Structure formats: structure tokens, C-alpha cells
């Protein structure tokens, strides 16, 4: 029967990441255009060098509030008019800050591009930050805080960052700020942050979709070319781990149906020369469905619906995290099995066969990741944010392909440290404390689920 024979792959077709061109306008604003002419859709994305790491101490959330505040009114229009303006065009303006940048973007049909870009220009260059809307945004953020603290996953993520990073590190506090920090941010602080950080020389506008390069450049220079201003100098974020020895914190959620687990430590910055080795190593440890940790915890033991690991890539060293949620009774067993998989990864070279699982996957999914104008625009934004080489996406697959078993072993030994793991368990202390304590992993503390 023909069906018993596994088919072999056909000859592979080449794929090229979309060609793009970069142009600098006289005011310092950079324009990157990638024509992608498949459907009548265009994404416009502005990357602004104003991430959450620029928040002053005690004002965590300032970058985020500034980004959201852009849409709430300009010198010419109020917030409602702006909102209606975009939605009439069948689009919405997304605006938010991540750690390293602020991203403002919209995806719209090709014939709506010009009016869309005009409105986006207004928002980027002349926001008025009305007091009433700023207060509303702050109140919305406080409501979101209440939600996160009641939600085991969000609570685990935040508790882990706070447990991992030393108090002085910006990364110890949530990206969008805490109740305390957001409450004290004023409208004037937002306006001042905007004035110092949103300048044309700190902005790259990326246009991807059904458009010619010259047309896009002309459009951006007509709209944003007259924007003036010079960027202020910026200090790099300070990043330190709270302690150098392994430690465990239980966040008490009495009666919880499951325990959320986070294990990790500080990782490496995005610009690290071992980036590709670490990406492949992590895929095999916990990045893929068929990774060692997921197969062990989910498929072998049935402890969880899923377990994964990741390096959170930022300009400064972001966390390396293993995340899962398990039936409370098996929390200790799940931690032990995870530690076993880490040890295995650090002791022996992986077989070629296993390595190719990750490298083939990462090479193969590359074109699948860049099917849409918005995903291409985000990829181009990463070049800007992390200062990656222009040919990064053209050489990505060969760089993945070049990773050897010895590189994976070196990456595991060099960037995963079982003795430094910080472990957070959000769960019922009555069920998890004793068995997790018995593992004798290090100092163990129990805290209630309130904001620090």
C-alpha cells in the first residue's frame, strides 16, 4: 500500500526575505521601505528610541503612558476625532512601549494609506496629552494591575522578575509600571518625556506592503519631513540579579487548582555573539513542542498542558525562563524533572539527529514567520532596535545551520546555570511548600499575592 511509505521532500525552493531600502531624511528620521505586493495591504510602523528602560526610578510606566497618550488628542483634534479618523479608514493605531522602544503602527488597505499617514504624523508630532485623558489612562492601568494580580500566569511572570532582578534594576518592575509608580506620574512628566525622546532623529518609519519604494519615501517626507528636534542623550539600563545563589519563593494562592512555576536567571543581551548557539540550544531544551522539557513534563509524565523555556531578548541581559503550570501535587516532581533536563543538556553533546530537529525547524519556519506585512515590519523594527546588520535576515538560516553539537553544549554550559536558578511557585502553600522544601534547592520564602 502506497501509504506505508514515508514521502521524501521535493527539491526546496529558495526564499528571500523581502528586499528593503533605507533612506535618511534631512531631519534625521530614517525611512525603511519593503515593497510586498501580494494583497492590497500596507503596514506603517514607527520605532521610537523610547523604551521602558528610559523610565526614571519611581516613574515606571512613563514610556507606556506616553505611547498610549499619543492617541488621546493633538493640537488640532481631540482623542475621539483621532480614534474615529483611523477607524473610518478601517484601521486602528496601535501604540505601546516595550523595554527598548516605543512602537506605533497601523495596517490598512492600500487606498487608505495617505490619509492614514497624515493622521499618524499628527499623533507622532503634536500630541497634546489632555489632563482628563491622561488620568483615564492611568486609571485603566490601575484596573489592569488589579487583573494581573488576580491572574496566576501574570502574577507568576511579575513575581519572577521581581524576585530575579535586584531592586535597582528597571527589569525588576513591570514594563508598564506598578500601582505606586503609575499613580504619581503627571501629565507634565509625560509631555516632558515626549519632548525629550520623540524627536525625528530617534525615529525610524517602516513601510511594508503594496507600494513602491519611491512613493513611500515621498509620502513619509511630505508628512514627517518637517518634524524638527534633537534627541537627548540616554543612559543604558542597569541590570543586576538580586542574589547569586539558588532560591525559592512561593506566592500563596490558597486553593489554587494548579501551580504556576517559573525557573530561571539573568540571560544575555540580544547583541551577544553566541546568539545563534543559544537560540538552537534553547529550542532543544524547551523551545519546541518536541523539546526535552516539554516531552518530559507533558508527554512522559502528563504533569502539564505545556512547558517551555525562552531567553527574553533585550538590549540589556533579559531573563532566561522556564515556564509551566502543573497540577499542584506534582510541583516538586516537575521541578526535579526540569533540573534533570538542564543537567542533561549541560553534560553531554546532543546527537546530530536531535540537533537537526532544531536547526531544520528554525530554517524551515523562517518564510512562514514573514507572511504578513505586519510581521515583516516587526522584523525590520528589530534590526533598528538591536542594531543588527542589514543582512541579518539574509544570513539567518546559514547562521542557524552552522551551529554544531559542540556549540550547543558550550551554550548550555556557558549560559544556563542550575546553581543560580531563581524559582517562583504561585500556588497553594499547603500543598506545595513541604514537597518543594524537601528538594532543598536553597532559601525558601512564602509571600502573599500583593504588590511589593
Amino acid at each position: 500500500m502506497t501509504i506505508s511509505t514515508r514521502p521524501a521532500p521535493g527539491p526546496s525552493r529558495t526564499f528571500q526575505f523581502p528586499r528593503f531600502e533605507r533612506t535618511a531624511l534631512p531631519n534625521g528620521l530614517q525611512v525603511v521601505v519593503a515593497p510586498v505586493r501580494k494583497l492590497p495591504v500596507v503596514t506603517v510602523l514607527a520605532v521610537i528610541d523610547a523604551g521602558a528602560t528610559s523610565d526614571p526610578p519611581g516613574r515606571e510606566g512613563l514610556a507606556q503612558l506616553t505611547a498610549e497618550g499619543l492617541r488621546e488628542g493633538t493640537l488640532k483634534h481631540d482623542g475621539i476625532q483621532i480614534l474615529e479618523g483611523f477607524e473610518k479608514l478601517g484601521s486602528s493605531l496601535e501604540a505601546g512601549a516595550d523595554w527598548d522602544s516605543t512602537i506605533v503602527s497601523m495596517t490598512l488597505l492600500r487606498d487608505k494609506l495617505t490619509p492614514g499617514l497624515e493622521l499618524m504624523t499628527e499623533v507622532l508630532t503634536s500630541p497634546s496629552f489632555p489632563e482628563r485623558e491622561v488620568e483615564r489612562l492611568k486609571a485603566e492601568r490601575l484596573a489592569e494591575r488589579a487583573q494581573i494580580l488576580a491572574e496566576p500566569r501574570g502574577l507568576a511572570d511579575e513575581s519572577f522578575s521581581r524576585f530575579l532582578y535586584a531592586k535597582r534594576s528597571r527589569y525588576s518592575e513591570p514594563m508598564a509600571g506598578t500601582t505606586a509608580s503609575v499613580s504619581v506620574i503627571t501629565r507634565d512628566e509625560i509631555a516632558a518625556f515626549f519632548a525629550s525622546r520623540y524627536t525625528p532623529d530617534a525615529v525610524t518609519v517602516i513601510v511594508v506592503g503594496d507600494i513602491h519604494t519611491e512613493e513611500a519615501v515621498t509620502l513619509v517626507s511630505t508628512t514627517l519631513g518637517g518634524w524638527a528636534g534633537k534627541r537627548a542623550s540616554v543612559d543604558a539600563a542597569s541590570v543586576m540579579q538580586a542574589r547569586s545563589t539558588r532560591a525559592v519563593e512561593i506566592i500563596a494562592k490558597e486553593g489554587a487548582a494548579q501551580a504556576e512555576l517559573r525557573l530561571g536567571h539573568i540571560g544575555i543581551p540580544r547583541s551577544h555573539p553566541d546568539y545563534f548557539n543559544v537560540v538552537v540550544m534553547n529550542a532543544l531544551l524547551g523551545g519546541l513542542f518536541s523539546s526535552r522539557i516539554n516531552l518530559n513534563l507533558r508527554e512522559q509524565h502528563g504533569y502539564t498542558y505545556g512547558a517551555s523555556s525562552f531567553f527574553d531578548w533585550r538590549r540589556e541581559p533579559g531573563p532566561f525562563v522556564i515556564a509551566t503550570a502543573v497540577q499542584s501535587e506534582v510541583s516538586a516532581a516537575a521541578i526535579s524533572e526540569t533540573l534533570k533536563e538542564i543537567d542533561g543538556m549541560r553534560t553531554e553533546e546532543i546527537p546530530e539527529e536531535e540537533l537537526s530537529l532544531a536547526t531544520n525547524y528554525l530554517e524551515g519556519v523562517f518564510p512562514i514567520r514573514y507572511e504578513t506585512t505586519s510581521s515583516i515590519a516587526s522584523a525590520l523594527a528589530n534590526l533598528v532596535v538591536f542594531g543588527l546588520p542589514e543582512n541579518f535576515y539574509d544570513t539567518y538560516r546559514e547562521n542557524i545551520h552552522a551551529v554544531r553539537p559542540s556549540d550547543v553544549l558550550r551554550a548550555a554550559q556557558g549560559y544556563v546555570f542550575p546553581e543560580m536558578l531563581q524559582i517562583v511557585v504561585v500556588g497553594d502553600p499547603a500543598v506545595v511548600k513541604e514537597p518543594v522544601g524537601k528538594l532543598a534547592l536553597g532559601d525558601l520564602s512564602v509571600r502573599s499575592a500583593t504588590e511589593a
Partner: protein
Amino acid sequence: MRIPIDTFRLDNGLFVTLSEDRTAPIVAVNLWYHVGSANERLGRTGFAHLFEHMLFQGSEHVGSNEHFELIQRAGGTLNGSTWLERTNYYETVPSNQLSLALWLEADRMGSLLPAMTQEKLDTQRDVVKNERRWSIDNQPYGTWLERLSALTFPESHPFHHSLIGSMEDLSAASLDDIKQFFETYYTPDNAVLSIAGDFDSADARRLVEKYFGEIPRGRGKPSLTGMDVPPIFGQPLRLVVGDDVALPRLYLAFRSPIFGSDGYYAASVAGAILGMRRGSRLHRSLVRERQVAADASAFTFDLAKASDLLVVDVIARPETTPERLEEEVNREVDRLIQDGVREEEVERAVALIDTEIVTALQSASERADRLSMFATYFGEPELLNEQPAKYQDVTVEAVNEFAGSRLGPENRVTLLFVPRMETADSGVTTPPSIAA
């Protein structure tokens, strides 16, 4: 904009849709089985979803976990999902791996049972129980879907019970149940296969015939009985749930015309006017102006049988009481009935929906999934291309007609989550109450 669509049917009943797009060397394969939680027997709930997990546990020529490994090793992405009326399985792979994806789907459709073991069932049962804990029991408002299904469909109705199933039913699932379920529903004549992306139609057709052609037709499946429901509930229904949540949250559900019917598009536009994006009525009024809500949205379930549901979902601000939240949301819905909608509100909604449709079709996986959906529910994948026109045709009158006939109190189900601490007996769950 029209995407090309070709269709054919194999002798064993498998319906196939093809949509070529050679812009990138990737291809999406998508298989819809016309079986969902509605096809489960009472006392055996959660079966369709548990079964979705079992389909990744290997078949005659594929080892357990090998399906995932083979696709990922080929450089592809994959998954499956279960809904009330259907279960789907999908992969997107580099186009030179199309035959692998088709072979894997055919192997499990044609020969799953020889590979089924008690041990695999036991492990996946534990995985699914953990999925339930993770996504429902340990999540604030996590029970909203099963509570709303229970409230909006009568006890005997196939849409009434929990999609993921109860812990008791999951424990009771036997290997024999699995076998029967597979033989009844996982047959070529109960499936639609869609392929979208970079392929040659003649090649694809040859591969589909080669791998799926010999799989025998099924013996037919029991029809869903007791599906008919009146167009409106006929009386207000209300349930208050004390839960481990920080903020009150209100769901309103209205019976609405089934997915794909003429009335559906007006309902969908009414939903968008009420709760799509920040410029919608609920968001503008409750979040922005009156500032009683932290977030507001509205959407349809897209059920193609019995009755669809239009659902409004609003989360309170910390200082807003549950009573106030309910009063404010109801007032906005009432206002829509009384005052009707304006032309520009319909235009705004249609413009947003239009962009969403075109943008989604950039992805091969979305194209294949939507083709399968229209083919499964209506036997007409071409409906995919007609969606923008169907929305363009929605008039102010049609939306007002819908609002007047479907959004009134006699067709309104209320599901209100309140923080447990704030309930009358502190720390005690508010007993469910259904008021006439």
C-alpha cells in the same frame, strides 16, 4: 480581491479545496472534521477535544509524538483545535514538504486505531485535565464559556455542555469510547481538506488521491437531534457567579441568526458597532466617557447550526459595583434598540471588518482554515471571496431590524462574575440563580 479556489471530491467522499499562491515557498494543509463537542453523548463530555489530543499520539506508520517531530523537523508549524461543531488539524510547511503533511494526515485518518493504547490515553487524559486546570479552573472568569453555553442552550441541547468536559467524564473515557468515536466521525466523508499556498494543482490532486484515496468511507454518523431553538430566549435569564476575580465582569448573550445566513452579517455589524475596537459604542461610552469599565468588546460565536450567539463582554473598573456595571451596559444596549444606528457607524464597522478580512488572508494558514470552514458548514468555499460584499450589503435598516428583534430584554442572557469577597456571605460562592 478574489483568491483562486478549486474544488474536487474523492470517491470516498473527502471534499478538497485548493487555493494557489506562489508568492512564498510555503503551503498550508488544513483538515476539518465535522465533529465537535455537540456530537458527544452526555456523560462522555470533553470527548471531541480529548480526541484531538489522541490524534497527535501516532498512527500505524507514525510513532507517538512523531507527528509533531516530523512536521517541526520539516520546518513547519502545526496544531489542532476543537469547537462546538468541528475539530480541525493544520500544518504549514515549506512547499517541498507538502507530501509529508498530506501523508501524515492521511495516515492518521486511515490507520489511527492500530496505534492506540491505554497508556497513551491515560497520559493525554492527564494532559487535558491540566489543560482544564490551566485554562478554566485556575483562570479568573475561566468558566465563562461553559457557563454561557449552559445558560443559553437547554439541557438536552447538543450545545449545552462543556466543550473541554468535566473531570469526571474525562476520567470515565475508555479506550473503547475512543475507538467508536474515531470510527464514527473521523472518516473521509465527514472531512474537508484544504491546501493553500505554493503548490501545483495537478501535483496536489495526485498526492491527495494517492494518500487519501484508499481510505474507506464511513458508515454515516448519527444526526444531531434536538438542535432547534426558538429565535429568542423568550425571557431574561441571569446568573451571578462569585469567583476568584479582582473586578466584576459582565457577559450578555443574545440569540442571533446562524453564521453565514443573511441575518448573520447584520448581527455581526451590530456587534462591531457595539464592541469592536476602541471607537465602538460600548468602549466609547463606558470606558472612555463614563469611565465605569476597564474594557468592553462584542463578538459572535459563529455557530452554523441551531442559533448563533452575539456576546457582549465588559470588565468593570475597580470602583464600579456589579450593579452599576450591569445597569450601564444594559442601558447602552437599550439605546441601540431605541435610537438605532447611524450610517457612519455601519461604514466604520464594515471598513474595520473589511481590513481584517484582507489582512488575515495574507497568511496561507488562515486562507486554508477559512476555506475549510465554508466548505464544511455550507459546502461552498467560494463564500470566502464573497465575505467583503456580504458586509458591504449590510444596511442601517438591517442592523436596526436585528437590534429591534434580537437585543431586547426577552432575548438577553446575563452572566455576571463578581469578586467572591464582595458577595453577601463573605468567602462563599454566590449560589447560581436563574431569574425568570
